[in-house]
């Protein structure tokens, strides 16, 4: 017998021509709703004891609706959910908390909301207090808490008694790294004792780390159910739009790609996968960056790039004035804005001849960079300037932080840049043992 059995689950929101028709239906008057809006349809899966399942999907894919039906707050329109055990869910941070009460009082209250008696809660209160590790704040009003502290209490209460099914919806992300690790440790202890975990996270890394299996929802249906690595890859492709992808096969890739890019002179930058509309764009005009292309290992616009693999960044510029000397530039930053590496044609091209451009001319430039970076997201900027690179440069068009790049690395090191250290044990001294 499975712990959770979801069969053909569906949820529709019904609307009526008038709310009175809805009310009349309660009194067994058969009236048809004027419209049905299906949020979730035909979802089936089972979860066994001790299994951890990640649920991924874009906003609006139906994740929350599914969780609410498993938790039991929302009634399915079709199909059913069968749960053989007790369920504990953290669907929203600090749910049921009263800001005017102390942490301790809220623990009693929320545990009551979960159906426990005061005696049961009092018995585990010291454990909850110890687990949350918020010190004196435990007896202060919750209104003085940070969201991380609220989450500490919420998690400590929700897991004070081992549930058979634990549902966590994003809530853990507000905790600091130390407490998150502590939560996951408790979760894995529970798993060994047979608790099933359902984790919803927008971080594919978390899903891969903590779940063996994942389910991807798309438009209210199960798009994929399988090993979490495969499902999250599929999810990332979906997010960053791998549909536009073409495999580049020829050896004259460069030639082909630049021809491909030169085929149109429209401004398509903002339509490309990974484009960030929050980009910061400035310059004195005179040139316009029209398009860009990333290629890694023959894949165009890869949804993620394996750490240390070479990446080609192409970008297409239209010049609106004659320039004696133009200098294309490229910059990569962390999400926090730390400059990791910036270069330009002069620096990277090691003094190649000056590039000149005529008004109306369109050129494609390429920077090839091996991604010696840790797992994470990075911001890419493109720019083009005119002038002498040794003296002052006039920025023509700069598109700062215009592309988001995901670097994937399963074996992570600490820090940001992979300086590619090697290691060896060199020489040892042997004590001569006297016999």
């Amino acid at each position, binding site marked *: 017998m499975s712990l959770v059995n979801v069969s053909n689950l569906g949820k529709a929101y*019904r609307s009526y021509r008038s709310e009175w028709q809805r009310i009349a239906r309660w009194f067994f008057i058969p009236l048809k709703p004027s419209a049905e809006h299906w949020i979730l349809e035909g979802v089936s899966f089972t979860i066994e004891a001790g299994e951890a399942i990640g649920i991924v999907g874009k906003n609006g894919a139906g994740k929350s609706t599914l969780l609410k039906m498993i938790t039991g707050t929302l009634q399915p329109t079709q199909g059913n959910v069968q749960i053989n055990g007790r369920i504990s869910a953290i669907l929203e941070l600090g749910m049921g908390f009263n800001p005017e009460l102390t942490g301790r009082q809220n623990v009693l209250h929320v545990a009551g909301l979960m159906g426990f*008696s005061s005696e049961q809660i009092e018995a585990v209160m010291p454990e909850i207090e110890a687990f949350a590790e918020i010190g004196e704040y435990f007896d202060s009003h919750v209104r003085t808490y940070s969201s991380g502290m609220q989450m500490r209490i919420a998690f400590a209460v929700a897991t004070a008694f081992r549930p058979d099914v634990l549902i966590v919806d994003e809530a853990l992300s507000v905790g600091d790294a130390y407490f998150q690790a502590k939560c996951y440790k408790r979760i894995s202890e529970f798993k060994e004792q047979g608790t099933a975990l359902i984790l919803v996270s927008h971080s594919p890394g978390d899903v891969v780390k903590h779940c063996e299996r994942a389910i991807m929802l798309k438009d209210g249906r199960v798009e994929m159910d399988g090993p979490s690595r495969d499902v999250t890859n599929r999810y990332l492709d979906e997010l960053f739009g791998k549909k536009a992808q073409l495999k580049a096969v020829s050896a004259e890739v460069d030639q082909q790609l630049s021809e491909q890019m030169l085929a149109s002179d429209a401004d398509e930058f903002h339509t490309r996968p990974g484009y960030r509309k929050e980009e910061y764009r400035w310059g004195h005009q005179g040139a316009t960056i029209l398009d860009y292309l990333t290629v890694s290992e023959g894949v165009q616009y890869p949804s993620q790039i394996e750490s240390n693999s070479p990446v080609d960044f192409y970008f297409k510029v239209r010049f609106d004035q004659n320039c004696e000397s133009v200098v294309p530039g490229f910059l990569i930053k962390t999400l926090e804005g730390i400059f990791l590496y910036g270069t330009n044609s002069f620096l990277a091209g090691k003094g190649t001849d000056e590039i000149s451009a005529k008004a109306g001319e369109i050129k494609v430039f390429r920077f090839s960079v091996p991604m010696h970076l840790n797992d994470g997201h990075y911001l890419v900027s493109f720019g083009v300037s005119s002038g002498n690179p040794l003296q002052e440069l006039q920025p023509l068009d700069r598109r700062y932080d215009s592309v988001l790049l995901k670097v994937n690395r399963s074996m992570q090191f600490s820090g940001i840049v992979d300086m590619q250290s090697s290691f060896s044990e060199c020489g040892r001294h042997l004590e001569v043992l006297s016999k």
Partner: protein
Amino acid sequence: MLGMLRGLWNYRNFVVTSIRNEFIARFSRSKLGGLWMIIHPLAQVAIYALILSNVLGAKLPGIDNKYAYALYLMAGMLAWNLFAEVVSRCLSLFIEQGNLMKKMSFPRITLPVIVVGSALLNNLLLFIAVITVFAILGQSPSVQMLWLLPLTLAVIALAVGIGLILGVLNVFLRDIGQVVPIILQVWFWFTPIVYSVNIIPDYIKGSLSANPMYPIVTAYHDVLVYERTPDLNEAGIITVVALVLMVIGLFMFRRASAEMVDSL
């Protein structure tokens, strides 16, 4: 129905802590704290007693006591406050607790029970204030006051019935939440609480029988002011009406429970 009761029993701890927390939260940042729970009703009753009797010199026909009118008013208020508090809180209950109902799985029936519990506690405090002031004004508690127990239950049944029906409808038709407070005001003045029933013109008197709060308030007057047994006939009919309304309310609540969460 049995499931409802079982759920309620399993969650009794939640109900009790919710009621207690409500009071703790209300007074949490005040110096006197819980004392305010008794100061408020006492002040309310004392103001009515002193202003009406001494300043306005309002008199109640048929009773000698100078404070009779104040007593009369307080008795009526005791009944009306309970009724109005339960109805108006049930009215917005599901909307206010919408997020909780969406995110936590617990028996929903606990929500109106918490409202009733805290309203009863408020009412008890008001009652203590009333008999204290009554005693000071020379009306000592009588055995007839025991009638207040069944009467309170009748008020609760009536208020929960009406409150649940309106509260459920309010989730779908939000205008109800706006119109009911107005109706409650009109209803208050249509019930002989501030005035004596004798001063109503005859042609309106007939319509009083359509007001379910009229027999209840009258019974409160009988018990507290005139110290006599209330008219059991009338009170009995109202109790039946109240119970029927409560069953309808619970029925609608059950039928609408699932859709309510969708709409919130």
